């Protein structure tokens, strides 16, 4: 296996607002170049907290208590903020869930795509414009010249997400963090966007951490998966193993709860209370080990 691009080691965090309650419990995972790693869980599982920890965007009330986040050999958590910012800016990009709030409503697409190129790649205005056009073309945007002159509100949801994908890959990042990038989209648009992310990521050999709650999306785009519950890893492994031969009852229950249009009698099984109880027990056992 190739050397990890991103490696998260034994990451734990607490929320000071909730009286020091743990929100990440000894989370370890790694992403190799060219690999898509799915980070899966239900709301409150801690998947966005992991993503934000990498980007140094944790809310003020959240404190990392132990662990390391290593990007291409450099530990991020102990790095001086200024150096961390420049490392992240140059090598990590985010594709957010809500493209409308991630784009500046009062600036044209051109400005938003060229800013990063000028700032991080030292492009001239003309060069940045040329590269922005090429990127819009690469994300299969029709009429890129016209789109460059538009404001975000003039684009559809799918087009906005294409702009953000173009922006994310503009700086040739080594790692892309995609935080539920298709949740708000129609299925046909979702498929186009997933294909686009996969194409771009393969073409540029970029590693990706793909945050989602949709096991269907996981099945089609992720190479490996980490399943979280209450900030604790319940199961981790290659996608096919996890979905077809799940070891943990929680994984099995989530697969059974996913809707199946092809086999309607098999989907939508509510997660049994016993399974939830077991997950909570595992967390409690971990916390006892921490304090005892």
């Amino acid at each position: 296996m190739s050397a990890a691009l991103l490696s998260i080691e034994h990451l734990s965090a607490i929320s000071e607002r909730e009286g020091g309650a743990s929100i990440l419990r000894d989370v370890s995972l790694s992403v190799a170049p060219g690999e898509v790693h799915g980070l899966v869980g239900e709301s409150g599982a801690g998947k966005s907290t992991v993503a934000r920890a990498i980007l140094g965007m944790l809310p003020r009330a959240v404190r990392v208590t132990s662990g390391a986040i290593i990007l291409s050999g450099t530990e991020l958590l102990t790095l001086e903020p200024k150096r961390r910012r420049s490392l992240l800016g140059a090598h990590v990009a985010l594709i957010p869930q809500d493209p409308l709030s991630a784009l500046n409503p009062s600036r044209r697409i051109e400005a938003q795509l060229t800013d990063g190129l000028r700032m991080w790649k030292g492009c001239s205005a003309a060069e940045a414009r040329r590269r922005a056009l090429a990127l819009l073309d690469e994300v299969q945007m029709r009429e890129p010249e016209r789109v460059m002159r538009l404001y975000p509100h003039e684009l559809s949801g799918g087009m906005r997400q294409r702009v953000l994908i173009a922006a994310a890959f503009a700086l040739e990042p080594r790692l892309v963090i995609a935080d539920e990038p298709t949740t708000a989209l129609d299925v046909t648009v979702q498929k186009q966007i997933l294909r686009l992310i996969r194409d771009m990521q393969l073409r540029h050999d970029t590693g990706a951490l793909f945050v989602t709650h949709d096991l269907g999306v996981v099945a089609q785009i992720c190479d490996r998966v980490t399943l979280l519950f209450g900030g604790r890893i319940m199961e981790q492994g290659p996608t096919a193993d996890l979905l077809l031969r799940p070891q943990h009852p929680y994984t099995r229950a989530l697969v059974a709860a996913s809707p199946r249009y092809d086999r309607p009698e098999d989907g939508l099984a509510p997660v049994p209370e016993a399974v939830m109880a077991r997950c909570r027990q595992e967390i409690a056992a971990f916390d006892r080990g921490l304090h005892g």
Partner: protein
Amino acid sequence: MAEILLEAANLDVGYATGWAKPATVVVKNVSLSIGRGEVVGIVGESGSGKTTLGRALLGLVRPLAGTIRFAGTDITRLDEAAMRPLRRRMQMVFQDPMASLNPRHMIARILTAPLRLHGLARTQREALALASQTLDQVGLPLAALQRYPHELSGGQRQRVGIARAVMLKPDFVLADEIVSGLDVSTQAQVLRLIGDLSRDMGLAMAFISHDLSVIRAVCDRVLVMRQGEITEEGACETVFAAPRSPYTRSLIDAIPLPVPDPHWLARLPEAVP
């Protein structure tokens, strides 16, 4: 087929865009019927007109043309006063319970107010008893009565929305994207609940969703909408097994199943005319 409860014929619905300008027609020449106790799915992508159609069925927007009949009465041109007795019998569950439950009212008040308004309970005590009974029916603890909406989880809030609709003993419930913001396990629970309620109470439902796999799970019949028109209609089983319209086919093929398929991403939809 069961007795027809709700019937729309040649419905056009649109919105005015400005003075002396023609209205933008969002729903075009739609005809449909929903039988008593039947759950009909309305599926379509954003902008297909499914929500507007739903609102027209409940008389929340007035159609430009066509007729709507509910339980034998033509409700197309009824004024608000004439609609009121029918309102109890046609209820709605909204997509975002945080936006449709008053944040400053406790659940007890949210549930008892409609009961008293529609005369189903004469006293507050009676109303509370009915509300408690309904909470139990939708799987919420009684303690929820003393909570504000923000103190509940998303799934619990959606159960309150469902309770508020079904406790009035309606004949028809419109559910507009009610599970789209929920986690997989919560979604499964809410959909099970909807299935149970419609069966036990003989409820007819229009279930609007952009997600065909959700429709497949709860509906008897499905209408596929595209650009304001119905492009396909049929029993769920038939439509999913052999869709006639290439558009429906493309919608089904775009659903990612939780089973790895190395060719799924690369597979392009057939061109939809």
